[in-house]
């Protein structure tokens, strides 16, 4: 009787008293979990090998940490500089540039940055390379001056003691950690080993720049070169840093009260600071390479100093970042918009010619008796079983100037030997070969849709008085549109990203944007630009897909009955 006493509002209960909805959810959960377990291998596979690389690509197209990682202090110093003033930046910028570049050159990272910036500022790559080679010369004069004052400056042990400070003094672990981080950012190496050296906090306070450069030097030598810093003198940048430090009146004052190891030598050097070579980094850098006198090179560093940049995307649409914001690239550097346009146009043309050639074939396939249509189907599929490379090469044999078609035409006398047709290494060759290669992707969906259209529709139309053409156009064709839609989407999307065929038969006028992407990925190694181009291509395809959905409706796409 309890079943009848059910309250009229309230949830419906299952026989054991739990709400029915809950029971249903529980019973469906098992099913869902089982389904999930079945697709899990594929899901994981797709996530790891497909989604993750795409996400990485998207990230690479905006990622720009290399500038601030390689030249951290320069980036900080240059932020105050107003490039529009058409003046060279101030001395601190060049000083920071010297120390950043010196460490980068020691770690052999400066050429990577040069390559990166060269995408935006042509010639900057060689500037970085020569600078890396000659940068040591700047520090050599200060090293010579110090050793001339006192040969103790040559000794690694002396330096080590000086920088370590008195045994009683507190070690400056913060500075060590800071320099570890600087090297990690620069080299991508964790740099976490213990190096048996910690700068003293007192000396680090008195000689900030020297302690900084020495610590970086010690870390790099110990971890990267596996050598003890105390066995030989530090690199030139440390001498330079000391010279800079000693020129600072504050430092001189601090030294006078300093009692730690090497205090006498320091005081002597400070006293002789007037005999030291001038600390003019602007002049020094320009002496290393006169291109440092060009503001645009420093501008490039300033413009691309951010951790993330739209620069690759701008580049991909023939734009560039300038001081006044975004502007078009010079005419002779514009290539990508033209390539995108060409890729789009040719893909549409290929799709259209696939419809034109594929429709009658699909019609015959769908209307022939099964045995004959199977044979024809094998002929359609045959190209599928042949290597893409072989098919494309076959077209090369067919179309080239000494190829089958030209030879035949000349032999027949239809063509003069001197005026053989140019059918390959241009757009025509790409369109012909790609239409052939992509044709099955049009025929198969068309065929499977046409198969589901009963012949009685055409008969009905004719019995109602329609001519063959009217019956086809008004009755048959509208019903085959889902097949055309499916085939077109397949062919168009395949065509727009096609690479091998345009590469082989496209020459210079018949190549696609994908060939350019491949060039940037494998030859120029401008991965950022390649990624940006790829992302734009992906976005274009998605946008077209969306438009297609709005106009035709994706429900109208059928890949089979």
């Amino acid at each position, binding site marked *: 009787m309890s079943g009848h006493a059910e309250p009229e509002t309230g949830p419906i209960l299952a026989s054991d008293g739990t709400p029915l909805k809950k029971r249903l959810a529980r019973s469906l959960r098992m099913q869902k979990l089982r389904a999930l377990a079945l697709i899990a291998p594929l899901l994981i596979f797709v996530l790891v090998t497909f989604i993750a690389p795409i996400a990485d690509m998207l990230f690479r197209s905006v990622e720009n940490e290399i500038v601030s990682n390689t030249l951290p202090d320069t980036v900080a110093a240059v932020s105050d500089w107003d490039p529009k003033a058409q003046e060279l930046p101030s001395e601190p910028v060049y000083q920071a540039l010297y120390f950043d570049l010196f460490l980068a050159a020691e770690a052999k990272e400066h050429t990577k940055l040069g390559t990166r910036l060269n995408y935006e500022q042509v010639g900057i790559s060689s500037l970085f390379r020569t600078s890396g080679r000659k940068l040591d010369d700047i520090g050599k004069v200060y090293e010579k001056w110090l050793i001339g004052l006192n040969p103790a400056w040559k000794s690694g042990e002396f330096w080590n003691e000086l920088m370590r400070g008195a045994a009683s003094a507190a070690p400056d672990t913060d500075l060590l950690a800071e320099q570890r981080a600087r090297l990690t950012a620069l080299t991508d190496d964790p740099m976490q080993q213990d190096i048996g050296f910690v700068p003293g906090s007192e000396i680090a306070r008195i000689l900030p720049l020297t302690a900084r450069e020495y610590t970086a030097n010690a870390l790099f030598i110990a971890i990267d070169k596996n050598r003890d810093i105390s066995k030989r003198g530090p690199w030139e940048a440390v001498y330079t840093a000391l010279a800079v430090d000693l020129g600072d009146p504050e430092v001189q004052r601090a030294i006078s009260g300093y009692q730690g190891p090497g205090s006498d030598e320091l005081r002597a050097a400070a006293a002789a600071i007037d005999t030291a070579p001038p600390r003019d980094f602007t002049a020094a850098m320009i002496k290393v390479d006169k291109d440092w006198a060009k503001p645009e090179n420093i501008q490039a560093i300033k413009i691309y100093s951010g951790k993330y940049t739209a620069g690759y995307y701008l580049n991909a649409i023939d734009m560039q970042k300038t001081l006044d914001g975004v502007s078009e690239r010079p005419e002779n550097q514009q290539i990508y918009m033209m390539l995108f346009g060409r890729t789009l146009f040719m893909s549409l043309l290929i799709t259209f010619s696939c419809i034109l050639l594929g429709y009658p074939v699909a019609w015959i396939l769908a209307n022939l008796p099964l045995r004959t249509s199977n044979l024809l189907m094998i002929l359609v599929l045959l190209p599928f079983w042949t290597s893409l490379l072989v098919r494309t090469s076959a077209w090369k044999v067919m179309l080239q100037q000494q190829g089958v078609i030209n030879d035949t035409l000349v032999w027949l006398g239809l063509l003069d030997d001197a005026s053989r047709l140019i059918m390959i290494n241009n757009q025509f060759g790409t369109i012909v070969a790609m239409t052939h290669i992509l044709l099955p992707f049009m025929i198969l969906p068309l065929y499977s849709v046409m198969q589901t259209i*009963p012949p*009685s*529709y055409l*008969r009905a139309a004719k019995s109602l*008085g*329609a001519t063959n053409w*009217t019956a086809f156009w*008004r009755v048959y064709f509208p*019903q085959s549109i889902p097949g055309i839609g499916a085939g077109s989407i397949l062919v168009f999307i395949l065509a727009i990203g096609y690479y091998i065929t345009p590469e082989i038969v496209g020459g210079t006028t018949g190549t696609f944007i994908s060939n350019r992407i491949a060039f940037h990925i494998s030859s120029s190694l401008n991965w950022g630009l390649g990624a940006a181009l790829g992302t734009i291509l992906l976005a274009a395809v998605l946008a077209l897909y969306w438009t297609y959905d709005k106009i035709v409706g994706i429900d109208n796409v059928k890949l089979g009955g």
Partner: protein
Amino acid sequence: MADGNQPFVQFKNVQKTYDGEILVVKNLNLDIANGEFLTMLGPSGSGKTTCLMMLAGFETATHGEILLDSKPINRIPPHKRGIGMVFQNYALFPHMTVAENLSFPLEVRKMNKADREAKVARALDMVKMSEFGGRRPAQLSGGQQQRIALARALVFEPELVLMDEPLGALDKQLREHMQFEITNLAHDLGITTVYVTHDQTEALTMSDQIAVFNDGKIQQLAKPADLYERPENAFVAQFIGENNTLEGVVKSIDGETCVVTLDDGSEIDAKPVNVSKPGDRTLVSIRPERVEFNKDRLHADAHTLKAKVKEFFYMGDIFRFRLSVAGNDEFIVKARNAPDAVRLKPGEEIEIGWLPADCRALDA
């Protein structure tokens, strides 16, 4: 317009083969009068649909001539024949609305919009589907689709309508209802109809004339009642309605009656149809409802047969018995469930007989 004497549709010595080896239609001659409802009835593969398709123009006759209103139409393409057609699966165009479907034959005839709309509205009204003009065929039930298909075949006012098993996909009740509607419509409009079916009940209830097809030939062309009651050969007798057959030899013929000696030696009365002389082997055919087990109702000197009741089926309005008669264990007898009806029990032995006119001696 055909005059009264001239048949509207004429098949003259029509033959059809698909592969050059087997004749699907063998020397067909058939006249269809104007305004007549003719049904082509027969088992599948009997050639009836092929005949229909030849008439519609979708198949060409290998030999012979088809005349429509006294004009040969062999060389006229289907769209110029002006024949309405209803297909087995309706063939309503799925991408058009109901009204567009109906308007299609008028559009291809270049009719102006106002006339088209008027005719479509009238045709929809005719099949009582006026509210459904804006729907798509997929949104209609089977019966509704059927009506639309019918309306579409009629909207351009053809003088001849062909229907290829149009009710095959409907359930029994709807089928019976549509049979009634189609016949009424055809008669009201006075159009000539050629209807193809393999369902004999449909053929019997709907037609003015039935052509029974078998093996590429017309076995009999007759009115429904004649076909049922007076089949001219063993095939028609067996194909139309339920039928009992007994084999034997003609003993004597006397005008409208003959005596047949069955294979077990017993003798019966029959009407000679396909037999000419004593000694002919024959198949006698008797409808289950014409068998009489009340001796009083038979002629005094009528021959009777001994029968043993094998099974009894209660079917509500009728009783059905399976008897063993003259070596035939599948002899069926039907009796109306009347107050005075005898209920025979299995195992009972009885005597049965019939009026000679009900029993037809056909070809063996």
